[in-house]
């Protein structure tokens, strides 16, 4: 197939078959170097069952078209996937489809350029910032309920500026702004926007910053996907609201900002409360609180009256007198306790003593008998048990005497 075809000779005329011709062209094309072709993707046919993706490239004026193929594997590796309408640079070799004699470009490499390239760069930056955590939900700060001063970064004399200020003042007449007008597109815009953000962030009176820009083409909004601007927003300690373009636009700064408002007037609604609505809500709350308080007071009063009607409250002296009575009873008990005990002990002692007297010799002694004991206390029953001059004790009915023996009769 790649061999150089051989013609048939008819006399001095050398003739090629169709396939020979195609093979010959193919042979020549193969010797050309790879070439870069710039064009817009006019048509794109891709199927999972096919080994190749078929692309039609055209010039922007639409007058010339070129068929191109790319292996599906190579095409699928492109991120994000190329779309119809995008402008690309394709590196490839001219190739002929030998059966049909059709020329096409076998693409080795496909790159976006122009907006396509820019969008791709933005996607790369988006992935990088996301990996750094700049879009993380936990970094988002809540907006103040009522900002003292609203910082506004916008283009000079911009419709976006008017939208923000007018909507905010309509909702909340005393709203105060500090407006910094900067170029919002062009090469110097990102640095100027970042500078304005830093300036407002440093202002202690500014409680919230709005970054506003009206709608525009993708190129017009590029500054708001710039790394410089994204990092400046991330560095702000003041909450930042992004209000760029229309609802469908999504520059990177939207993801870094604390709150994304689709449009400038939506931003105004987010940064200031609706004065009239808030006032009405407060009135309603106050009225409800008043009713609740009334209800509460009435309930409390009924409870108090109920308590006051109880005997203990109606005549406070009763609960004092009850306690006084109890105290008296206790005191009486205390007073009786000691004498009672003494009386009990006296009775018991008297009883014991009576028994002692009954058992003892007292009654016998009363009748005139006496008990005589020697000095050791032994009772004398026999005169022989003692002797003259010995000490004896004589116990009588009442008391006793000590005596000395003068004489002993056997």
């Amino acid at each position: 197939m790649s061999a150089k075809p051989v013609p048939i000779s008819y006399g001095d005329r050398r003739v090629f078959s169709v396939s020979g011709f195609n093979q010959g062209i193919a042979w020549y094309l193969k010797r050309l170097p790879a070439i870069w072709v710039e064009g817009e993707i006019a048509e794109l046919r891709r199927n999972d069952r096919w080994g190749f993706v078929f692309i039609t490239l055209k010039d922007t004026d639409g007058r010339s078209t070129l068929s191109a193929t790319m292996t599906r594997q190579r095409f699928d590796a492109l991120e994000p996937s190329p779309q119809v309408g995008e402008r690309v640079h394709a590196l490839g070799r001219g190739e002929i489809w030998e059966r049909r004699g059709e020329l096409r470009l076998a693409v080795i490499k496909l790159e976006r350029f122009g907006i396509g390239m820019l969008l791709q760069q933005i996607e790369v930056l988006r992935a990088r910032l996301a990996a750094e955590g700049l879009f993380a939900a936990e970094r988002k700060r809540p907006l103040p309920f009522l900002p003292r001063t609203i910082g506004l970064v916008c283009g000079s004399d911009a419709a976006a500026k008017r939208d923000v200020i007018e909507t905010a003042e309509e909702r909340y007449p005393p709203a105060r702004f500090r407006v910094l007008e900067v170029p919002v597109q062009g090469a110097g815009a990102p640095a100027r926007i970042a500078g304005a953000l830093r300036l407002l962030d440093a202002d202690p009176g500014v409680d919230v910053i709005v970054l506003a820009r009206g709608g525009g083409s993708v190129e017009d909004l590029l500054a708001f996907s710039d790394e410089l601007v994204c990092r400046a927003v991330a560095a702000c300690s003041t909450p930042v609201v992004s209000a760029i373009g229309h609802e469908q636009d999504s520059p990177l700064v939207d993801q870094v900002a604390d709150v994304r408002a689709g449009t400038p007037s939506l931003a105004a609604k987010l940064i200031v409360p609706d004065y009239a609505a808030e006032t009405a809500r407060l009135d309603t709350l106050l009225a409800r609180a008043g009713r609740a308080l009334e209800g509460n007071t009435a309930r409390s009063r009924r409870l108090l009256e109920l308590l006051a009607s109880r005997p203990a409250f109606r005549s406070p002296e009763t609960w004092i007198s009850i306690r006084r009575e109890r105290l008296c009873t206790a005191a009486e008990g205390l007073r009786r306790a000691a004498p009672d005990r003494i009386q009990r002990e006296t009775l018991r002692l008297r009883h014991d003593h009576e028994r002692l007297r009954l058992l003892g010799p007292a009654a016998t002694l009363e009748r005139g008998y006496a008990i005589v004991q020697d000095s050791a206390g032994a009772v004398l029953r026999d005169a022989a048990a003692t002797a003259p001059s010995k000490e004896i004790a004589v116990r009588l009915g009442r008391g006793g005497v000590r005596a000395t023996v003068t004489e002993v009769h056997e």
Partner: protein
Amino acid sequence: MTDEPSFEQARDELEQIVRKLEDGNTTLDEAIGLWERGEQLHALCRAQLDQAEARVAELLRRMDDAADKP
């Protein structure tokens, strides 16, 4: 035992003596000794009761005075 037994000790001893004498198992000599000790204990108890009674009476009198005062 100390020289001066407590009221309860003295009373308990007195009651022991009475029970011993009622048993009648003692010799006369012992009985006389026990009886003498009993009389002694009785006098002791009596004196302590009199003393206690006097103190209580004094306290009650003072309490009444205090109650009458205000």
